[in-house]
């Protein structure tokens, strides 16, 4: 029923090696943030009713409060949806020929870039700070000889492992390239 990813412009005999999203901790961080925002009006209404029990007697106050709370909750829920959409549509696809970097920045901005493996010059991984070190996520930085000098896999799970996969693929690509040229 589900596939991991489908490359619409796949080259002949191109194989997808791995599809990488941001680490799940990034999604959890966003979920916690939005849960707190969603709980805010419930706490506020409860406190208002506790502090001003007569508020409900004003004809327009209670309906207005309900409408504002409902609008706020729906708006925050929409922002939460956009945030998860952003998370799910940011993806790096590593194939045996190239790396495709797909970025969704908000609703109306989407970019797709690709780097061929034979253009890669250097690959490094980094984990900065307590959370990245402890939870084993971070960035993988790919230096290339193409127009786009740097390609960064941001906040991905186990960056060392991804770097190893990329190094092996690039080495294999270089060997094939040299053999092909002889």
């Amino acid at each position, binding site marked *: 029923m589900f*596939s991991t*990813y489908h490359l619409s412009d796949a080259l002949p005999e191109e194989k997808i090696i791995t599809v990488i999203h941001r680490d799940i901790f990034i999604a959890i961080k966003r979920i916690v943030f939005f849960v707190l925002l969603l709980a805010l009006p419930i706490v506020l209404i409860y406190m208002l009713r506790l502090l*001003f029990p007569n508020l409900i007697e004003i004809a*327009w*106050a209670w*309906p207005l409060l309900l409408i504002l709370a409902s609008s706020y909750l729906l708006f925050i829920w*929409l922002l939460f949806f956009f945030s998860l959409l952003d998370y*799910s*549509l940011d993806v790096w696809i590593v194939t045996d020929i190239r790396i495709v970097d797909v970025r969704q920045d908000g*609703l109306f901005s989407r970019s797709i870039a690709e780097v061929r493996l034979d253009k890669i010059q250097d690959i490094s991984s980094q984990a900065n700070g307590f959370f990245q070190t402890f939870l084993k996520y971070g960035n993988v930085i790919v230096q290339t000889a193409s127009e786009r000098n740097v390609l960064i896999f941001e906040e991905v799970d186990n960056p060392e492992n991804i770097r190893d996969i990329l190094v092996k693929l690039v080495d294999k690509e270089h060997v094939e390239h040299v053999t092909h040229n002889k």
Partner: protein
Amino acid sequence: MTFPLVIFLYGYFAFLVFWAILSLVGFYHLVRFGGRMFVSFFVGFLYVIGTIFLLYVSYLYLATIDWQVQVSIFQNLGNLKNVFESPTVFN
């Protein structure tokens, strides 16, 4: 100055139309670019379930209000004094 309470409801419906359009744009992105990825399906499913819940709870509360009532804003402003003078948990 009096006005019908239902004006608030019309404002709310206008917001709902705007909100529904943005939701549809989000779904368009999800279907078009997310394809058949599980994570996209999960995000879409979660959004639909949450939306149904929020709209249903909103309906439950808003349905209890008589929207035909005419309210006088200046007359009721006097009542605000009572609100602030009412017994609170701090008394």
